C-alpha cells in the first residue's frame, strides 16, 4: 500500500450537511476516515441556567426551541414532567389532543430526517417531497397554536385552547394520505439502487454498542432492539393505542432509514385511533396561577421523542421556579457514537451517518 500522510479536515460548523452548527474534525487518510472528533456547543444557549430564572410556565416556549423540528415533543415532555412534579391532572380530551400533536410532530421530524438525508446524499428532489408533505403538518400546527415551527400549544395542565374548526378534517385527510406519501418516498428514494448502495452496510452500530453508549430512539431500534418508551414505560395515555415498534436487524444506515419511514406509518395509526376515541370536554385541568413545587421534590420524566429518550430532571425548592432543570437530550447522547461508526469508512459516509443518526443541534447543545 502507498503510504501517505494523514490530514485533518474540518467539517462544519459552517457546512451544508451538518444539520446545524456541528463541528467535526475528521482525521483522514485520502478518502478514508481514520478518526473523528466531534466539537459541540455552537448552538449552546444555556437553557438549563435560563430555566432557573423562569417560572414553570415561562419555560414552555424554551422547551419548544430544543428540538425545533419536532416542537411538540419536547414541550409535551416538559409539561408532563411538571405535571408529575406538581400533581396536576390533565383532562381526557387534552390527553388525546396531545397525542395527536405529538405524533404529528414525530411524522414531521421523520420527514425532515428522510428529506434532509436525501439531499445529503445528493438526491435533491427527495428533499422537496418530504418538505411538501411536512408543510401540511405545519399548517395544522398553525391552526392550533398560531405558530408553524415553534408552537407552544401544549401547556402545563392540558393544551392552550380547544382545537379549532377544520382541525379534525385536516388531520384526517393527512392521515389518509400518509400511505401515499410513504409510497412516494419509497418509490423515489428507498427503492433506488444507488441509495441502497450508499446506505447498506454503512455506519454499522451493533446492539451492544448502542446500549453501552446510551443510544435510544429509531437509532437503537434499527440495531434490532424493540425499545420504545411509548410501550416500555407508557406515559400519558399511550397504553390505549395499538401500534407496532419497527425494528431493523443490522443497525446500519439503511436500517435507520427504513425504521424512520415505517415509524411514520405507525404514528399515523396512532393518530387515527386518537381521532376516533377523542371525547368531548375540558382541555385544561385545574392549574393554580402560581405553580410552586415543594422543596426537594424532584422528578425524572422521560418520553420517546423523535430522536430518542428525552428526559427532564426537575428539582423544586418551594418557589415558583425550578431549582435545577436538566434535559437528557437524545441527540447529544446519540452523537457520541458518530466517531465509532465513521471510523474506517469513507469521507462520504460521515455525511451519510450524520444524516441517518438525525441529530438536532438545538437539542444536543441546549
Amino acid at each position, binding site marked *: 500500500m502507498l503510504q501517505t500522510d494523514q490530514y485533518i479536515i474540518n467539517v462544519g460548523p459552517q457546512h451544508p450537511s451538518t444539520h446545524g452548527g456541528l463541528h467535526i474534525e475528521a482525521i483522514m487518510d485520502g478518502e478514508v476516515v481514520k478518526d473523528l472528533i466531534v466539537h*459541540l*456547543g455552537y448552538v*449552546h444557549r*444555556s437553557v*438549563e*441556567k435560563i430555566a432557573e430564572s423562569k417560572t414553570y410556565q415561562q419555560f414552555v416556549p424554551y422547551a419548544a426551541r430544543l428540538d425545533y423540528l419536532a416542537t411538540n415533543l419536547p414541550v409535551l415532555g416538559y409539561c408532563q414532567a411538571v405535571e*408529575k412534579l406538581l400533581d396536576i391532572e390533565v383532562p381526557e380530551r387534552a390527553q388525546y389532543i396531545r397525542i395527536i400533536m405529538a405524533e404529528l410532530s414525530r411524522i414531521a421530524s421523520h420527514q425532515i430526517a428522510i428529506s434532509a438525508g436525501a439531499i445529503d446524499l445528493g438526491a435533491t428532489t427527495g428533499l422537496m417531497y418530504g418538505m411538501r408533505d411536512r408543510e401540511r403538518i405545519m399548517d395544522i400546527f398553525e391552526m392550533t397554536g398560531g405558530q408553524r415551527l415553534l408552537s407552544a400549544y401544549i401547556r402545563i395542565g392540558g393544551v392552550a385552547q380547544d382545537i379549532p374548526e377544520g382541525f379534525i378534517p385536516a388531520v384526517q385527510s393527512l392521515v389518509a394520505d400518509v400511505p401515499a406519501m410513504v409510497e412516494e418516498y419509497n418509490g423515489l428514494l428507498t427503492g433506488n439502487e444507488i441509495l441502497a448502495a450508499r446506505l447498506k452496510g454503512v455506519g454499522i452500530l451493533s446492539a451492544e454498542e448502542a*446500549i*453501552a*453508549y*446510551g443510544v435510544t430512539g429509531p437509532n*437503537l431500534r434499527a440495531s434490532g*432492539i*424493540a*425499545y420504545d*418508551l411509548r410501550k*416500555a*414505560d*407508557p406515559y400519558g395515555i399511550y397504553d390505549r393505542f395499538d401500534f407496532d415498534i419497527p425494528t431493523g436487524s443490522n443497525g446500519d444506515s439503511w436500517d435507520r432509514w427504513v425504521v424512520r419511514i415505517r415509524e411514520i406509518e405507525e404514528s399515523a395509526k396512532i393518530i387515527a385511533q386518537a381521532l376516533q376515541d377523542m371525547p368531548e370536554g375540558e382541555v385544561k385541568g385545574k392549574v393554580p396561577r402560581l405553580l410552586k413545587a415543594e422543596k426537594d*421534590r*424532584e*422528578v*425524572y420524566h*422521560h418520553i420517546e421523542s423523535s430522536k430518542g*429518550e428525552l*428526559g427532564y*430532571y426537575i*428539582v423544586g425548592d418551594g418557589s415558583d421556579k425550578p*431549582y*435545577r432543570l*436538566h434535559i*437528557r437530550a437524545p441527540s*447529544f*447522547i446519540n*452523537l*457520541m457514537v458518530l466517531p465509532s461508526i465513521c471510523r474506517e469508512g469513507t469521507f462520504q459516509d460521515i455525511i451519510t451517518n450524520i444524516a441517518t443518526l438525525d441529530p438536532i443541534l438545538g437539542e444536543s*447543545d*441546549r
Partner: protein
Amino acid sequence: MNTIDLDKLGKELQEQYGEAVRVSSDSFANVLQVQPSHLVQLMKALREQYGFNHLANLTAVDYREEFQLVYHLSSIPDCKTLTVKTRVSRAAARVDSVFSVWPTADWQEREVYDLMGIEFNHHPNLIRVLLPDNFEGHPLRKDFRMGGEK
C-alpha cells in the same frame, strides 16, 4: 414499566455495602444514596447483576455546600428504573468516573464537568464539551455570576 423489588435489592446491597448505601423511595422513583467511594463498585454490580444496562441520564445539582450527582439507570428493554445519588463536598468536587461501566458516561460527565465543575477521576478525556475551552467558571453553579450582575 416493571418495578423492581426494592426490599430485596435493599437487603442484598445492605449486606454487601453496609452503611455505604442507603435505600429509599419517593413517589416517583427508587433511590439509592451511595458514598462516593463505593460508587463505581455499586454501579458495576447494578449493571452486571441487576440488569441496569442503560445509564439514561447523569447530572448534578448544586446544593451550595455540596454537589449531588444523580444517575438515572434503566434497563433495556423492560425499562426498570432506579435512581442513584451521591454527594461530594464543594471543596473537593471530585468523584470516580463511571465511564468504565457505561461508555455513555463519557460526554455526560464532560458536560457535568463543563457546566458544574465536578471532576471525574479516570475519565479518558475530561475537557469541556459545550463551552469554549477558554471559558472561565462553571455556569450551572449557583454562585456563577452572569453578565450584568457585577
